[in-house]
């Protein structure tokens, strides 16, 4: 317990989290501080590329084995399954319509890559190594949750609000920018291995944490602006859901990680993936597939409640639990 608190304190006082807090503060105080959209997108491309590449190099280093495949399958199962848990919780804890609840549930089955990146950087700062292929697991978990959510809608929503799913949208989802970049750079890292790493190490390794700081500053700004715009949109129940669901997700992720026999680092990352909620790929898909679902609800929950929760309290808790359970 002592440990968890120290860990949480350390995490809360890292430059990354403080940058996020600064962004949140600036947005809530209505400062006009902004990171230009193009710059934020460039930072996210850098982060995705670096994290994918490093994962690929790590896998090239340790060799591929069956555990990669089983971890992928485990991740996909979580992504399919978690929306059902989220939907049930939402229907119990809030008065959201079936459509809104299903759309929100899709976000919680999918993942937030920035939360994942932050977790890897917390692991790195405490010298905990994780399976390199967890990056591939992250990519694999982006989309399946959408299928579950659409199935939930088709079962529960009033007629006329059915989903507008078509082949085109599937292509968009499966080839969305972050999946392609993450998987692509993972493959590039795998192919070029340590030689490739040597050539671009001083670009993707040393400045990584600093770039993450600026990116989290922007995430804080965006989350804060979202929160301000959404005042009165979320009920107390919904806010509670935004903090309970990551814990439920993390518990599922933990169970899965134990079944898969992952290392401490891998357990933390699997918990983080399961606990995190999407706010890029899934919202865009929901706007097309379920236009009647209210974007303020799912965006505010995912970006304004769950994302900060994981960043500040969640990740240190997951690290502590993983260390306690694996006895590391």
């Amino acid at each position, binding site marked *: 317990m002592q440990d968890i608190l120290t860990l949480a304190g350390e995490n809360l006082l890292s430059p990354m989290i403080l940058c996020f807090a600064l962004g949140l503060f600036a947005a809530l105080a209505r400062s006009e501080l902004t990171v230009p*959209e193009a710059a934020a997108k460039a930072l996210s491309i850098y982060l995705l590329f670096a994290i994918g590449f490093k994962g690929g190099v790590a896998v090239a280093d340790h060799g591929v084995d069956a555990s990669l495949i089983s971890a992928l399958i485990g991740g996909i199962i979580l992504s399919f399954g978690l929306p059902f848990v989220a939907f049930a919780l939402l229907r119990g804890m809030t008065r959201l319509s079936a459509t809104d609840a299903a759309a929100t549930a899709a976000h919680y089955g999918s993942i937030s890559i920035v939360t994942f990146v932050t977790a890897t950087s917390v692991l790195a700062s405490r010298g905990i190594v994780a399976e390199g292929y967890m990056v591939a697991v992250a990519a694999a978990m982006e989309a399946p949750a959408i299928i579950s959510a659409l199935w939930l809608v088709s079962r529960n929503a009033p007629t006329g609000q059915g989903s507008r799913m078509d082949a*085109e949208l599937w292509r968009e989802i499966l080839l969305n920018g972050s999946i392609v970049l993450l998987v692509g750079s993972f493959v590039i890292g795998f192919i070029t291995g340590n030689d490739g790493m040597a050539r671009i190490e001083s670009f993707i390794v040393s400045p990584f944490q600093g770039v993450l700081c600026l990116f989290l500053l922007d995430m804080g700004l965006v989350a804060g602006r979202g929160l301000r715009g959404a005042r009165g949109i979320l009920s107390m129940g919904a806010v509670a859901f935004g903090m309970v669901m990551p814990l439920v997700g993390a518990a599922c992720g933990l169970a899965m990680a134990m079944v898969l026999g992952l290392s401490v680092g891998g357990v933390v990352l699997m918990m983080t993936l399961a606990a995190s909620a999407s706010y*890029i790929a899934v919202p865009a898909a929901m*706007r*097309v597939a379920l236009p009647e679902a209210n*974007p303020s609800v799912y965006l505010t929950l995912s970006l304004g409640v769950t994302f900060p929760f994981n960043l500040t309290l969640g990740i240190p808790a997951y690290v502590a639990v993983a260390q306690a359970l694996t006895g590391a």
Partner: protein
Amino acid sequence: MQTHKAKRVEIIIEAPMEGRLTDALKKAGVTGFTILPVLGGSGRSGHWTREGQVGRAGMVAVICLIRPDRMDALLQAAFTVVERHIGVVSITDCEVLRAERF
């Protein structure tokens, strides 16, 4: 200079729907359109700015100059796409140069 009567249709629509709208316009026989970026806006579904967004969120403005007789096909096509979505459609009378282009 010689000008010709035409209509200027302006459709403000969610960015993820852009490709679907322009595909529908092309199918409806529209020969051209122009897409402008949008910084933010306000409507029944609230206020938003590009700064409060991540990813491919936000809206775009699609401008379409057409011959008056093609209007109905265009509006029909546009309406099918925007129907369930937030956004607005406005139509203005205008004149164009080089009518052979429309």
